[in-house]
């Protein structure tokens, strides 16, 4: 068993880390404070091939694997979650369904623009009545004169409302017991983006409700066969878990790195606080948890890259890392004392950014259901 990353993966980590520290870190606080979408950074990441990491070169992707993708997501989140989720939702949720289930024409139409980062992709699954119970979709789509007519609303959708958003794949009922996915271009008539939410964190990422009022898209915009929507989104979420799990590891690592640096600087009772056992225990515990969680995430990525069943490991990784990120950011704030409660310190933002990781792309309770089912419970 070999725990070493390949030279390519090492260099990818190095490169994304340098980028995150040099390009993202200096503006992360400002982006968060101003709730400003990081257009400039997304364009730079697109130029480097990072908006299409796990897709083959034939479709315009960078030709990387899931492990390279996980490493990139991890390193970005170590510095800023908003930038990371923008890339992550675009890749795992926005581009993935078209890559996996699209026809040759659909792939040719959308993938080059998506994988190069020219446009952003989004995935609209969640609805007011369908969150964890994602199958309870209420949005309806019916055929009329060679077009789908869509009516309904989507909730909490990432990446759909920016000026570079180009397409959203939505889940809709195409019959009483039939769920299908449809490709909806940004300019489809009757498709409207609502105002962005006022969120606890992920402030520089774009999250909005979407409404479809007699929204019309061509019949060919159906993704895969009619009625395959449920299976398709389960598959997309399976893959997506590797990305969000990598976010959990990266955020926890960022929190630990900040906490350690601060603890070495901050003096109390005549010594750096890093010399006190109570602080050391926190740092040591976090480092163990992070390393264990990282291995779980990389294992899930590796299983996917080897073409094996990775669903269980990915759900385990997602469950483990979301909780870890919440705990690690809390401890990091604690180690910073009052300064951790002040926005000048990144851990303050980290703390707000962490909580969504136990909720988005399947809550912890949903992961537990998935895992328990896989265990045969």
């Amino acid at each position: 068993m070999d725990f070493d990353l390949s030279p390519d993966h090492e260099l990818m980590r190095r490169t994304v880390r340098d980028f995150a520290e040099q390009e993202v870190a200096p503006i992360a606080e400002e982006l968060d404070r101003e709730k400003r979408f990081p257009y400039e950074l997304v364009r730079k990441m697109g130029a480097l091939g990072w908006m299409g990491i796990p897709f083959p070169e034939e479709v315009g992707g960078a030709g990387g694997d899931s492990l390279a993708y996980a490493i990139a997501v991890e390193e970005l989140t170590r510095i800023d979650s908003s930038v990371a989720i923008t890339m992550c939702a675009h890749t795992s949720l926005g581009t993935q369904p078209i890559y996996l289930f699209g026809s040759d024409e659909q792939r040719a139409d959308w993938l080059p623009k998506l994988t190069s980062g020219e446009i952003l992709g989004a995935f609209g699954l969640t609805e007011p009545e369908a969150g964890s119970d994602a199958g309870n979709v209420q949005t309806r789509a019916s055929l009329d004169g060679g077009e789908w007519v869509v009516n309904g609303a989507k909730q909490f959708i990432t990446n759909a409302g920016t000026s570079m958003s180009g397409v959203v794949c939505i889940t809709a009922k195409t019959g009483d017991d039939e769920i299908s996915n449809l490709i909806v271009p940004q300019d489809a008539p009757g498709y409207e983006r609502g105002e962005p939410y006022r969120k606890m964190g992920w402030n520089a990422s774009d999250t909005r409700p979407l409404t479809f009022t007699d929204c019309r898209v061509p019949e060919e915009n159906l993704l895969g066969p009619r009625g395959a929507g449920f299976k398709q989104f389960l598959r997309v979420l399976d893959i997506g878990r590797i990305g969000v799990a990598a976010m959990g590891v990266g955020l926890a690592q960022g929190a630990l790195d900040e906490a350690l640096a601060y603890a070495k600087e901050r003096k109390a009772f005549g010594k750096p606080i890093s010399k006190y056992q109570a602080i050391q225990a926190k740092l040591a515990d976090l480092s163990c948890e992070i390393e264990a969680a990282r291995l779980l995430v990389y294992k899930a990525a590796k299983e996917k890259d080897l073409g094996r069943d990775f669903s269980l490991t990915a759900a385990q990784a997602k469950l483990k890392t979301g909780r870890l990120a919440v705990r690690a950011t809390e401890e990091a704030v604690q180690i910073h004392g009052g300064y951790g409660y002040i926005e000048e310190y990144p851990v303050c933002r980290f703390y707000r950014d962490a909580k969504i990781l136990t909720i988005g792309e399947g809550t912890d309770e949903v992961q537990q259901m998935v895992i328990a089912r896989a265990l045969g419970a």
Partner: protein
Amino acid sequence: MKIAVLVKEVPDAAVEKRIDASGRLDRSGEKNLNPYDTHAIEAAVQLKEGGTIPVEEIVAITAGPAGAERALHKAVSLGADRSVLLSDDAVAGSDVIATGYALAKLLERESPDLVLLGQQSDDGENYTIGAVVGEFLGYPSLTQVVKLDIAGETITAERQAEYGYDTVEIDLPAVISVGDAINEPRYPSLKAIMGAKKKPLEKITIADAGIEADKVGAAGSKIECGNFTEPPKKSGGTIIEDEDTSATVEQIVAWLDERKLI
């Protein structure tokens, strides 16, 4: 024209620098390509892409432990066409002169028209390798170059001087060490990273390069390490309370004047 870029793997900037028991820099922990060298590679790639002079090849060269392959991997991902690694236990512990000699021998095999390197390494910070290599090769060398133009056989360079810049003209072949103001190095794209392993990497020993064993390594070096102590702590400095601004300005000017700083 052929450009050789000298590169080095150094401890990452985030790693705290420590002296080991032998009195040398502890090089354990996370490593990176010396940041100044990325500017040298970028300068080479810009010359190639610029098209004013035809650049047939960019070769990245390093002497170091086996792990230094990582630095070359990054160098080729940033645009070098191939790389050469001198990895030989005999070279370990070389000082600046011995390292410069070894690198000059590697360069002799390549006979490049232009040798580029970073002005300093992030670990040793000697600022001297370029000049040493130039001396061994018998090439003119310029250090701390922040602007570089080549026309025909002539290089026009701006080098950072104590006050402002010197503009200097020299002829090729030459050794030029560059400062970080010369350019903004790119990040390697994922495709470039994955394409890097397809570019040739040549691993050689001192015998292959005709390097005399007694001129390199700790034994071939004149420098003696040991007995290092921490530099003295900075003294407290002078704090001027600003009660009357014109008086404060006068005090500051007098202070600077006394030290001949203005």
